[in-house]
C-alpha cells in the first residue's frame, strides 16, 4: 500500500504542484514500486475523466427569473467595515509588514537555484515545433506551441494576460495542470515551457484549456503530425 507521502506526490503531480525535487522523488518511487505506478495511472484516469465532463448550460430563463425576483429596493449599501478603528490599525500593521517583506525579498532574499524552479518546466533546446496556436482575447493573448525535443513532447507558452492564467493540458486520458502563467515580472512576453511526459504516444491532439479565476477564458487544440 502506498504511504501517504507518496500518495501526496501523485496528487500533487496531477495538480501541477510538484517542484523538481518532488518530481525526482516521485520518479524514484514509481521505479521502485509497481503498485505506485498502478495507483498513479488509476488516479490520472479518474482526474482525466472528471476534467472532460462538460459544463451544462443553465436554463435560459434563469437570468430573467433572478431579475424578476429582485426586490424593488436598492441593494444594501456597503457597510463601512473600514471605519472600525481596530480594523484600521490591523490593516496599517499588515501594510507595514507587507512592505517590510517586499523590501526583504527584494534586497536580502537569495535567488532560488534553477533546479528549484524546474518543476514541470522543461528546457526547449533543440526542439522541433509541431504546431502553434495564436490566442487573442481581451484577457489572454499570445501563442502556445507544441514541440518535440529529446525528452519528448512539450508546450511553450508565450502569453500576456490581465491576471494569472492556469492551464489544463489534456491528451489521451492524461492531464497536466500549470498555474500562474501570463504574468509579467520582466519586460517582454512571459515564456514558459512545460514538459509533457508520456504524452504523444497514440493521440493526435493536445487540448489546452486556459482558466482565469476558475473560469474558462480560452481553449486551443494543438495537433501532432500524423506521420511522426
Amino acid at each position, binding site marked *: 500500500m502506498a504511504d501517504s507521502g507518496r500518495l*501526496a506526490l501523485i496528487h500533487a503531480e496531477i495538480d501541477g504542484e510538484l517542484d523538481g525535487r518532488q518530481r525526482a522523488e516521485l520518479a524514484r518511487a514509481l521505479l521502485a514500486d509497481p503498485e505506485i505506478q498502478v495507483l498513479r495511472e488509476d*488516479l490520472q484516469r479518474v482526474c482525466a*475523466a*472528471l476534467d472532460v465532463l462538460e*459544463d451544462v448550460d443553465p436554463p435560459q430563463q434563469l437570468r430573467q427569473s433572478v431579475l424578476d425576483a429582485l426586490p424593488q429596493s436598492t441593494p*444594501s449599501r456597503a457597510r463601512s467595515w473600514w471605519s472600525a478603528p481596530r480594523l484600521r490599525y490591523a490593516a496599517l500593521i499588515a501594510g507595514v509588514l507587507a512592505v517590510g517583506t517586499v523590501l526583504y525579498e527584494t534586497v536580502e532574499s537569495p535567488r532560488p537555484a534553477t533546479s528549484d524552479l524546474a518543476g514541470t518546466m522543461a528546457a526547449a533546446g533543440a526542439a522541433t515545433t509541431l504546431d502553434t496556436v495564436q490566442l487573442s482575447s481581451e484577457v489572454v493573448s499570445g501563442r502556445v506551441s507544441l514541440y518535440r525535443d529529446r525528452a519528448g513532447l512539450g508546450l511553450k507558452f508565450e502569453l500576456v494576460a490581465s491576471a494569472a492564467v492556469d492551464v489544463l493540458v489534456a491528451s489521451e486520458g492524461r492531464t497536466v495542470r500549470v498555474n500562474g502563467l501570463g504574468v509579467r515580472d520582466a519586460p517582454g512576453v512571459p515564456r514558459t515551457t512545460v514538459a509533457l511526459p508520456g504524452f504523444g504516444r497514440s493521440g493526435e491532439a493536445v487540448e489546452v484549456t486556459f482558466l482565469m479565476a476558475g473560469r474558462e477564458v480560452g481553449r486551443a487544440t494543438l495537433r501532432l503530425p500524423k506521420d511522426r
Partner: protein
Amino acid sequence: MTEDDDATLVRRCREGDRTAFEQLVVRYQKPVFNAALRLLRDPEDARDVAQTTFLKVYEHIGDYNPSFKFYSWIYRIAINESLNALGARKPCEGFNGEEADAAPGPERQLEGQQTGRAIEEALMRIKPELRTVIVLRHFMHLSYQDMGDILLLPEKTVKSRLYSARQLLRDRLLQGGVI
C-alpha cells in the same frame, strides 16, 4: 467594448445599478448553476439554488468585503445553498433516484457518455464535503487557495479532502469496472 471587472460591477451594483447586477448574473450563472448541479445532480434543484444564490448576493452585496475575491464569495454562497438543499433531502434521496442501467439504452451507448454518467453516480455516493472539493477543483478549476477561501478551510485540509475524494472515486470506479 471592454468588459467591466467584478469590482466595478459590484461597485455599480451597490450604487443601485441593476444592469451591473444583471451582468454579474450573466457572468456567473453558468459556474454557479454547474456547481449546484454537480453537487445535487438535479437540474431543478440546481436552478433553485442558483436563483437563491443570486438573490442572496443582491441582498447582501453591501456586506461583501471588496478586499476578497468576488467569485470566492459568490461560490461560497452557492456551495452553502447547495449543501443546505442536500441536507433538506430525505435520506434515501441521494440523487434523483436513478441507478446505472445494466443494459444501456441507445441514447447512451457511447463510451464517453457512460463514463460520464458513472462518474456522476460515483460522485453522488461520496460525502458532500468530499464531493464539494472535487467540484471546486475539477469542475470549477479553482486553486487550493481559492478552495480554502471558499470553504473557510486551511489549504492542508483542502488537499487532504481532495486526495481522499479522488481515492474514493477511484475505488468506486474500479469496483464498477469504469476505469
